[in-house]
């Protein structure tokens, strides 16, 4: 079962080693050939790539990628004003560039935090406008990929400090603090994200002073942050538990105070241990942002409905549209999970 040997030589014996294996090989090859041929025929050979609705309707067994060629801008940017769409495009590039830079362990230095603040301010400036000669675009018109990535990045950035406090609180020596943090974490982890988003979109408006309505984006972001924080807190708690007690005792014996021990000795080791788990949580959060569609924000998934739902010409080609945004999500999430594997290996090397 285990220690599966790799390489062409091992493959040959795996494929043809015994009559049973040879039979399995033939059957699987036939299945792959049949599936592959149909996929190729539908997706490439018979497909229409031009934004030509007539040709799309005429084709029998073929995909209409023309819908992507025609609608990629509303799919990726939602209702953002057409001639201003270079702004969300640059905003996405800025956030992605900073994310990729932060993914490199060598750049985990003091300047990363201010860099992130600058990048986030730049993101908001580009999206919102109203300054530096940019036209003001209300948040109700934000949408598509920048909203997906923005919600995930800002939600995670806001959730992380909260999660840190919750995780430390759950291990606190004070029973009241411990109980409060544990109840919060278990309560939030026990309910679906959708109910938290409903709460944010229906109930938060009731808490604000009369006459001042918080933006729907702000409300959803608040809900997402509160939700993600509970999950991150449990991951961080796992890391805290994995740091040997002796470390704390030695530090205390050396005269470190309670907080300096946590800040300088326990947390750096704990966080290092859970970086791969945190990356997996980032993937989960990125996928979870698709749920804000349900409460009426047009991120990547919602923007597709917006782009195709109101257009009878292109509405029949929803499937191709879904495949397109599924591919976008897939590239982002698969990239992150590969990164997580790479990081785990790299951090493991350092620890050994």
């Amino acid at each position, binding site marked *: *079962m*285990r*220690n*599966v040997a790799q390489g062409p030589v091992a*493959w040959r014996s*795996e*494929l043809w080693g015994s009559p049973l*294996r040879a039979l*399995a*090989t033939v059957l*699987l*090859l036939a299945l*792959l050939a049949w599936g592959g041929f149909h996929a190729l025929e539908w997706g490439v050979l018979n497909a229409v790539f031009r934004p030509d609705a007539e040709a799309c309707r005429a084709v029998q067994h073929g995909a209409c990628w023309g819908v992507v060629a025609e609608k990629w801008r509303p799919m990726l940017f939602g209702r953002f004003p057409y001639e201003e769409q270079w702004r969300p495009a640059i905003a996405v590039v800025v956030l992605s560039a900073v994310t990729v830079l932060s993914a490199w362990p060598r750049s985990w230095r003091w300047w990363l935090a201010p860099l992130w603040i600058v990048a986030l301010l730049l993101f908001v400036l580009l999206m919102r406008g109203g300054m530096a000669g940019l036209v003001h675009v209300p948040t109700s018109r934000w949408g598509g990929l920048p909203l997906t990535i923005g919600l995930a990045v800002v939600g995670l950035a806001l959730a992380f400090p909260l999660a840190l406090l919750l995780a430390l609180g759950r291990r606190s*020596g*004070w*029973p*009241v*603090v411990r109980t*409060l943090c544990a109840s919060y974490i278990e*309560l939030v*982890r*026990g*309910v*679906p*994200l*959708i*109910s938290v988003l*409903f*709460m944010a979109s*229906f*109930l938060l408006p*009731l*808490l604000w002073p*009369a006459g001042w309505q918080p933006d729907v984006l702000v409300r959803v972001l608040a809900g997402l942050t509160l939700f993600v924080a509970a999950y991150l807190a449990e991951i961080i708690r796992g890391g805290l538990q994995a740091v040997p007690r002796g470390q704390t005792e030695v530090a205390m014996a050396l005269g470190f105070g309670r907080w300096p021990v946590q800040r300088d000795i326990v947390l750096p080791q704990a966080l290092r241990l859970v970086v791969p788990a945190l990356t997996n949580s980032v*993937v989960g959060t990125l*996928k*979870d942002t*698709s*749920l804000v*569609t*349900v409460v009426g924000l047009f991120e990547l*998934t919602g923007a597709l409905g917006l782009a195709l739902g109101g257009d009878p010409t292109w509405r*029949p080609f*929803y*499937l191709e549209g*879904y*495949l397109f*945004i*599924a591919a976008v*999500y*897939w590239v982002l*999430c*698969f990239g992150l*999970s590969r990164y997580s594997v790479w990081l785990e290996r790299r951090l493991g090397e350092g620890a050994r």
Partner: protein
Amino acid sequence: MSRQASRRGAWLAWVVQALLVLAVMAGAVWVMNHALDVLRSRGVRSGFDFLTEPAGFSISEGWLDFDASQPFWRAFLAGLINTVRAAVPAAVFAVVLGTLIGIGRLAPHVLLRGICTAYVEVLRNVPLLVQLLMLAFAMANLLPDPIEPVRLLPGVWLSKGGLSVPWPVSGEGGWWPTHFEWPEKGDFGVSGGAALSPEYVTIVAGLSFYSAAFVAEIVRAGILSVSQGQVLAGQALGLTTVQQLRIVILPQALRVIVPSLTNQLLSLTKNSSLAVAVGYPELVSVANTTIGSNGRAFECIAIIMAVYLLLSLLISFGMNRYNARVALRGWQ
């Protein structure tokens, strides 16, 4: 001196904690009061009294018949039953499919391994909502009309109208099922057996396929955790691959698998709330409709949260009991 200082420290800790409790309670009271004030100023009534009023909407499917003249509490009950009706079969399919794929990812056959790996990597890196919407669109648009359904297996028919499967029925008088009723194709579509709506098929299939990818990873990690010596010993005793799996590997792997599987079942149950997006009338969908009709958002969300917390507790309790059975006792 130092004992005095530590006693003062303990005393201080209790004062701070008492203040913290007071602050949290005061905050909660203020939030409730403020929210009630705002509701009152907007002329919205509050409280759970609406539960006994007639709902004014009907629920198209489920084990509990529900029409518009019946009270809201019955609508919520029907929604809850529909949640369970979707989540339980999805959990069973996900565990079976996930176990097969997880074992397949370690199979001594490169093609099989490749196919199983591709399944996991594709399904778990695309949001469940996108997969559900895609399935719902395919169900509604790409399948043939109910008049000319496709036969998937003997007695299993699929069309735009949904899925028809054989279903046990009881004979005259008794309630114990005696035989299966097989769906048959007639001039006006399929009749007999159990007719499952397209929405139901979408949510059960979507949840199963998505969760199976995660279950597969859990099963794989569990199998890899069994020490290599055990496998070699099994081989030395002349056990076949299937016997090794059944007798040696799986019982030991379960110890690693069950706790993670519990997490996965919990998230599957919570994910069933996404059925609201594909039009299957489960609990969240009923609550959403209720909020739309009478604006009792606070009460409805409280019901959703309470019910899911209860479901989560039940699943954790049941799985922990099971875990206690498969876990090692005493010394390893």
